[in-house]
């Protein structure tokens, strides 16, 4: 009985290691296929539209509300200490260092990541990928590489837009609703926010998140069981694994970037 359980655990562990190995090989093949994008920039532009532009609306709306809520909450805490003038510092540092990359990563995994997995998985189940192979068109170059590169490019761009719109949301609440002086709002931010350690570290985080989310999304689509159940499971895995990877990596990167 116990040996059966141990055997099952071992079998499960081996399967997971095999999958990680497959995903690593898949990533290697994807990276080798990227130079093809130089010959076919149109494929990349099209995917940038699908994964980037079409994710824009949710990023804009989420960014606006996150910035507004953050400003309100910051005010409630800071006003007790007479430090409400530092509201812009609170909002900008939270957004640039953490919330911008993390929120964008989570939203991207839910919106674009799941769509990528579903699209590639459906192409697999309807034999479109096999059909391409038989037409001597490599799906790694034609399907996977443009989607992967588009995601890696789109996430930092979306993050920068999220950051800008969230700070504008905070600005609106602080100036229009809470009566903070506009000059104080911007000068606090200008003096205390560092371009490299705050903004660039946030952008590096977003690049790492984008890379990992898109890797998970395209691999799950390519590796899924070509059935409706398999496709559903793969899409769920993309969102769950992608989101957890963002949160876990955020801690590691924060520890590396901001450790004292």
């Amino acid at each position: 009985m116990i040996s059966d359980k141990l055997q099952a655990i071992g079998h499960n562990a081996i399967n997971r290691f095999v999958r990680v190995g497959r995903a690593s090989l898949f990533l290697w093949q994807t990276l080798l296929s990227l130079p093809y994008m130089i010959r076919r920039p149109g494929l990349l532009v099209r995917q940038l539209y699908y994964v980037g532009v079409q994710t824009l609306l949710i990023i804009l709306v989420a960014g606006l509300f996150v910035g507004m809520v953050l400003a309100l909450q910051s005010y409630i805490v800071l006003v007790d200490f007479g430090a409400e003038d530092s509201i812009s510092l609170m909002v900008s540092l939270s957004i640039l260092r953490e919330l911008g990359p993390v929120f964008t990563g989570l939203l991207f995994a839910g919106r674009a990541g799941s769509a990528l997995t579903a699209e590639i998985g459906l192409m697999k189940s309807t034999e479109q990928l096999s059909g391409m192979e038989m037409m001597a068109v490599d799906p790694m170059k034609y399907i996977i590489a443009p989607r992967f590169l588009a995601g890696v490019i789109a996430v930092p761009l979306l993050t920068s837009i999220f950051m800008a719109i969230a700070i504008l949301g905070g600005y609106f609440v602080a100036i229009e609703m809470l009566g903070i002086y506009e000059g104080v709002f911007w000068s606090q931010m200008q003096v205390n926010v560092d371009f490299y350690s705050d903004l660039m570290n946030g952008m590096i985080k977003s690049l790492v998140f984008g890379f990992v989310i898109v890797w998970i999304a395209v691999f799950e689509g390519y590796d899924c069981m070509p059935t409706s159940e398999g496709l559903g499971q793969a899409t769920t895995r993309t969102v769950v694994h992608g989101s957890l990877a963002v949160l876990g990596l955020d801690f590691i990167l924060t520890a590396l970037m901001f450790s004292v």
Partner: protein
Amino acid sequence: MSFSRGERVIFDNIDMDIERGKVTAIMGPSGTGKTTLLKLIGGQLKPDAGTVHVDGENVHKLSQSALYDLRRRTMGMLFQSGALLTDLSVFDNVAFPLREHTTLPEVAIHHLVLLKLEAVGLRGARDLMSTQLSGGMARRVALARAIALDPEMIMFDEPFTGQDPISMGVLVKLIHDMNYALGMTSVVVSHDVEETGSIADYIYLISDGKVVQSGTPVELKHAKSAWVQQFLGGVADGPVPFHYASEPLMADLMQAEKS
């Protein structure tokens, strides 16, 4: 050549020869691995033992670029599902291999695509999206796409399934005429005994991982094997079981009653 999926043996040391310029049919009961055989020929699957040679090349010894080059030069495949690209129109699907593999001007591609679509009777459907097509139409578009680059060999996976009688007749004639007019080699996987038999030069009957019988349609028609006669005649009782291996029905029912 031998091939297994897990514990299940799909092909057990089979030996087949597909003659250049002829129509060769692969037939057999469902689940015998006919589609798998086409994927082995096309290099999408690798045999456990033995070799597959196409145009003198050992398919599974080729590098990826050499395999893609071989496919481009010599192979076309019509998938059972059609495998059309769903984000493209009918016209763009047929133009896809031409745009990917040739440097022809768009005007020439336009003319070629229309000629291929005319051959399958779907020139008028060129602007439809592939998702708007019926199963039979999708397969005809896929056929037009498969012949777009005029390959030396085309593999047809169940080309007649889901076709109405008129389309089926046209397709049967089309495969036959293309084969001889263009000097192509055709490999047809099909269940449709009558239609396939009418155009095939040679037929392989496969079952349980083995080639059960092979020969010309006339030879098979007069074969003494009960298996061959049951399969070709579509008879329920005979050496080929209709039922998947199981206990007798009564025993199964009684067991359910007890439990």
